[in-house]
């Protein structure tokens, strides 16, 4: 991908992305422990204790209610009152439980606040560039950028900031978009074509453009971006809602388990206090995932923004994890934007050098990439040096759609290169005949997927230049990578099926759509969707808009037209069509992290039972008459914890501490490995399922050693 130098000048320079997974020109990654974010997050965590907010997360709401209840019991105890729910608990025990329950709730809020804080820090950078500029209207007059309406037409000159999102309707200019893309090289924006969209807040460096505003006030790209990274417009995604229901259901069942435990224990003659039962409840309900769920979602969006992708909804990010089919434009994505000369095929009786010299001569004034590649090939293969045409009496004949050839007239000699049939006609007009070998060579090249370019000098056919599409470096690996992730790639091209098949084979895509029209693209997407597949597509042109809108994940290039940007549900600021790989990875990571922490959270319960239940029932059914005797269930204290109270405190301390310990994982996301689904499942089950089973045994024991031995509980 990188290191290619043949990009045409009008090609968006920001389209030179980093490798996936490696940091290219990325937004500055913030350290997790940046003090400013931490301080704000701590304050936020306390503010989020507002029950009206907490109730939206049933798991954590139960924690808060439990904390409140325990605190009340302690308050009564501390004031010397009698309360039935306290049992024979000492006040210090009730207080310790209460404190750790509050901490559990605060840690959960803290995780969310950190994720939001990181987004807010990004938003602040973005907001700083939303300077209030005065826009010059085309009809004369000026108004503040913030008051521009949909359809207003403004003129932006060199050095000025573009006042709002819009489409260039006249002129061409180089624009510095580093503010939103982080890429310092300027890009070209011009009227008509696929590079007409401009973004408010970016700066015109040269020339002057006329821009029609395409946004409503306050709804600019920048506004949306700020809202997104701040999490202000965050809505729960479908999968998050479903997972939330699962967690709420588990919370409900554990609530019933704990509430019914009191009469059960009562029958066995064992007293249970509120502090102990609430501890058991909080230890059992899935607090780990409940506390981290929203942080995972926010962090996922944040990771995308760091990769310079703007998802317009969380739903789209989630959907990207499910993508089965990826449609990629051939030109500029799979192949370099332009074909390159690869071979000279001389006619019988013509030497390769003669052909190459004529071809080079005809191409010297040809500034198209194809033309330049002919000059390069002639030099590389046969050492033919470039000549200076200016001194000679040369007349350059440019390419037109009518003649379909170009060339040079030099000292009475005319050299032409162009489409086969055009050259044949030219030769015949000059009184010559094209040899049959010419047709044969042209057909062979076309069959191989190349573009034949015939060369003639006056009435004589010299040969054919073989122009080839050059597949970008590393594409095959990328497609292999996608395949390993379970995604089929389909190359979309306007080429004929023969050419398309050749390039498809060379690039290693799974399938191709040749002679593609916008209708054909749309039909292909619909066909895949009807088969139950999720389709992703990248595009930049206005004619891509319908397909982008139809695709489940439509990634519009920032360099593209306004229509394309509106139609897609993500915008790639780097305009890198293969960015989809990273987008898909972020989507998958998001889901894996949720699943892994849910599994971990539930698996943890086993150890917590082993800590708390023997503690509660240590004396149940003990041989009568002996006050200090332990009952049969004390045998289940496999961790050999210090004392019943120390065991319970250790369990909830572990339960609380695990939340901040897992915050980095929640924010970073569990790594996605393209191993195939079953292998990945086995791996994650082992790490988070079995790990979740074992870790708390170790953790609770360690906490107990501190709580019991050092603190004497």
């Amino acid at each position, binding site marked *: 991908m990188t290191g290619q130098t043949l990009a045409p000048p009008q090609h968006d320079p920001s389209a030179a992305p980093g490798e996936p997974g490696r940091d290219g020109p990325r937004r500055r990654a913030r350290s997790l422990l940046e003090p400013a974010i931490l301080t704000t997050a701590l304050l936020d965590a306390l503010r989020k204790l507002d029950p009206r907010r907490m109730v939206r997360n049933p798991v954590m709401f139960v924690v808060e209610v439990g904390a409140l209840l325990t605190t009340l019991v302690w308050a009564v105890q501390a004031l010397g009152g009698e309360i039935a729910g306290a049992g024979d608990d000492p006040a210090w025990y009730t207080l310790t439980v209460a404190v750790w329950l509050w901490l559990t709730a605060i840690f959960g809020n803290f995780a969310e606040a950190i994720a939001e804080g990181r987004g807010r820090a990004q938003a602040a950078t973005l907001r700083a560039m939303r300077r209030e500029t005065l826009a010059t209207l085309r009809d004369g007059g000026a108004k503040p950028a913030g008051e521009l309406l949909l359809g207003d037409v403004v003129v932006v000159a060199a050095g000025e900031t573009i006042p709002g999102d819009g489409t260039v309707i006249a002129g061409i200019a180089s624009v510095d978009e580093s503010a939103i893309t982080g890429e310092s090289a300027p890009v070209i924006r011009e009227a008509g074509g696929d590079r007409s969209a401009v973004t408010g807040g970016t700066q015109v460096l040269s020339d002057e453009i006329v821009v029609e505003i395409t946004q409503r006030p306050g709804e600019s790209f920048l506004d949306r971006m700020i809202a997104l990274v701040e999490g202000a417009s965050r809505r729960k995604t*479908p*999968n998050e809602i*479903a997972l939330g*229901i699962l967690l709420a259901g588990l919370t409900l069942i554990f609530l019933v388990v704990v509430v019914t435990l009191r009469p059960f224990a009562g029958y066995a003659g064992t007293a249970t206090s509120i502090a102990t039962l609430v501890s058991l409840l909080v230890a059992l309900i899935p607090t780990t995932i409940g506390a981290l769920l929203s942080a995972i979602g926010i962090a996922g969006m944040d990771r995308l923004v760091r990769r310079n992708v703007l998802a317009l909804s969380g739903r789209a990010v989630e959907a990207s994890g499910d993508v089965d089919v990826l449609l990629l434009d051939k030109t500029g994505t799979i192949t370099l934007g332009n074909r390159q000369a690869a071979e000279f095929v001389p006619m019988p009786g013509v030497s390769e050098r003669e052909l190459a010299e004529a071809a080079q001569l005809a191409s010297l004034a040809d500034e198209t990439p194809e033309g330049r590649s002919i000059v390069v090939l002639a030099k590389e293969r046969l050492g033919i040096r470039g000549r200076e045409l200016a001194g000679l009496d040369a007349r350059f004949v440019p390419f037109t759609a009518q003649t379909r050839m170009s060339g040079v007239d030099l000292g009475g000699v005319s050299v032409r290169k162009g489409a086969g049939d055009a050259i044949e006609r030219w030769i015949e007009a000059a009184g010559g005949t094209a040899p049959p070998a010419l047709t044969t060579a042209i057909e062979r090249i076309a069959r191989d997927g190349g573009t034949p370019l015939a060369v003639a000098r006056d009435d004589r056919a010299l040969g054919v230049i073989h122009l080839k599409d050059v597949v970008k470096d590393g594409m095959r690996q990328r497609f292999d990578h996608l*395949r390993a992730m379970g995604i089929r790639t389909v190359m979309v091209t306007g080429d004929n099926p023969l050419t398309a098949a050749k390039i498809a084979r060379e690039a290693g895509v799974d399938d191709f759509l040749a002679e593609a029209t916008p209708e054909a693209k749309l039909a292909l997407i619909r066909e895949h969707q009807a088969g*139950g597949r999720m389709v992703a597509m990248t595009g930049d042109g206005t004619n891509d808009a319908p397909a982008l809108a139809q695709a489940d994940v439509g990634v519009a290039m920032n360099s593209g037209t306004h229509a394309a940007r509106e139609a897609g549900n993500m915008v790639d600021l780097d305009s890198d069509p293969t960015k989809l790989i990273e987008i898909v990875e972020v989507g998958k990571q998001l889901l*894996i992290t949720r699943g892994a922490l849910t599994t971990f959270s539930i698996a943890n319960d086993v150890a917590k*039972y082993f800590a708390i239940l023997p503690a509660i*029932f240590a004396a149940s059914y003990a041989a009568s008459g002996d006050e200090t005797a332990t009952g049969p269930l004390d045998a289940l204290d496999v961790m050999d914890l210090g004392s019943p109270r120390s065991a319970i405190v250790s369990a909830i301390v572990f339960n609380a501490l695990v939340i901040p310990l897992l915050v980095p994982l929640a924010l970073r996301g569990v790594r996605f490995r393209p191993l195939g689904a079953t292998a990945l499942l086995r791996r994650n089950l082992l790490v988070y399922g079995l790990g979740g089973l074992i870790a708390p045994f170790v953790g609770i024991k360690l906490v107990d050693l501190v709580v019991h031995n050092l603190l004497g509980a």
Partner: protein
Amino acid sequence: MTTAQGWLQVGLFCALLTALTPLLGAYMHKVFRGDAILASSAGRVERGFYRILRVDPGEEQDWKAYARSVLVVSLGSWLLLYLILRTQGIHPFNPAGFSSGPADLSFNTASSFVSNTNWQFYAGETTLSNFSQMAGLAVQNFVSAAVGIAVAIAVIRGFSNRSLSTLGCFWVDFTRALLYVLLPIAFALALLFVSQGVVQSLAPARAFTSLEGAEQAIALGPVASQEAIKLLGTNGGGFFNVNSAMPFENPSGLVNVVQMLAILAIPAGLTATFGRMVGNRRQGWMIYGAMFAFFAAAVAIVYAAEAHGSPAQHLAGIAGGNLEGKETRFGMPGTSLFAVVTTVASCGAVNAAMESLTGIGGAIPMANMMTGEVIFGGVGSGLYSMLMFVILAVFVAGLMVGRTPELLGKKIGAREVKLTMIGTLAAPLLALVATAAAIASGHGLRSIHNGGPQGFSETLYAYVSQANNNGSAFAGYTGFVQPNAPGNAGAFGLTFADLLGGGAMLAGRFLPLVAVLAIAGALAGRTAHPDGPGTLRTDTATFGALTIGTILLVALLTFVPALLLGPVVQGLTDRMFR
């Protein structure tokens, strides 16, 4: 001590069951695709049924219509059975002249047989007339089983990749389940049982003088016909109070094995039917495998625990395992196997006194029921309940492979998760709440026979069994008091236990049933996403292990505190409680 012969018996049974599964599965697949039979001359009876019911067999029902039909049939059955029980005194075939049942007991019994639970607070031979047994209970044994099978088939249709958004026609599925599955197999079984010595008679009780010289009357009745469907339909309600421990119900070791196979045949076979209907037989085997793993582990534990004996027995110097409450003609393995078979399937027939099992040996049957009756489970209900656990497993695991979860290519969304939570949590919640209500109130304590942890176990077992529609009992728990008087004069029900249990059975049956139909309705007609390398395959051993883990965790986490206070205490102590 466990013996090689005992293990061989267990192994042989497992092999027979595994061999039977694909055969019966394929047969049922054919039955419910069934248009060939309908068109043929063998379909005359079936066509007659539809004419009487005024049903067009080609008509499709959406989930709501399907559920409505299920509820209509069940409500009708309930009313009919309740009426029969309450008016028993005026019916024929009542040689012992039993009076009509009290309202509370009849409520419990009607709810019990309509919900395929067959919990029995009454003793058959001292409470019910032959008419009540035949026209009341045996009919419901067929009906409730056919309802379960029909719902399972409808649910499978929802999961499978049909283009229709409907689930089939309940009346057709119900009729076919009766005509082609339950009736013929039950008929053959009944004949086999009669040939082996099971009683089939309408004669009054046989009076005789026992060896000790006591006058005794042994009840007879139409046992074999009811016995067959009792097992085949995983109903479990015995003709006699001691159920399959009675020689007239279960005379020999051979019959014992046939009975156990009859219990598991349809629930196991349906896994294969499932595989065929969704077009992936491995998928069916995955489910069978997960069920079988649970089953095998349960048998091993119970057999080992019973052969080992309890700490209290060891203290008393009794060696050679726990034979208390067991029939010597079945022995330790035959009893252990039966205890597990009947509780993994929601059958509830027993061939020993469950209450007399060791602490651990008794904990396992309870744990089997606590899984929500998904280890084979009831006919139909076992499979559809299992599918809800598969959805839970797929939901969490699906996330871990980085895709939004899907099962058989169909996305599992918020609605499905919500319904699954209702469907899987209803029974455990009911069991816990009912047990707590019973253990915490004087009304509930009246039903307990023993004290200490055993009394707790009795209560827990009773409500776990009823909420999960199993029907087996730790014998001590009672809801009906019978003085030994002719015609049952002076007998009365314990209203609290009767109503609480009856309510738990109805809710435990119909909440999950409607929930799973709603899930199937949501999935039906949804385009199935084709498998790719990135999609989670649900027909692998890895996924099977995950399903097992999910079921185990849900059951364990819900019931461990309760299990500790009952059977586990007894398993860990040699102390005797009152």
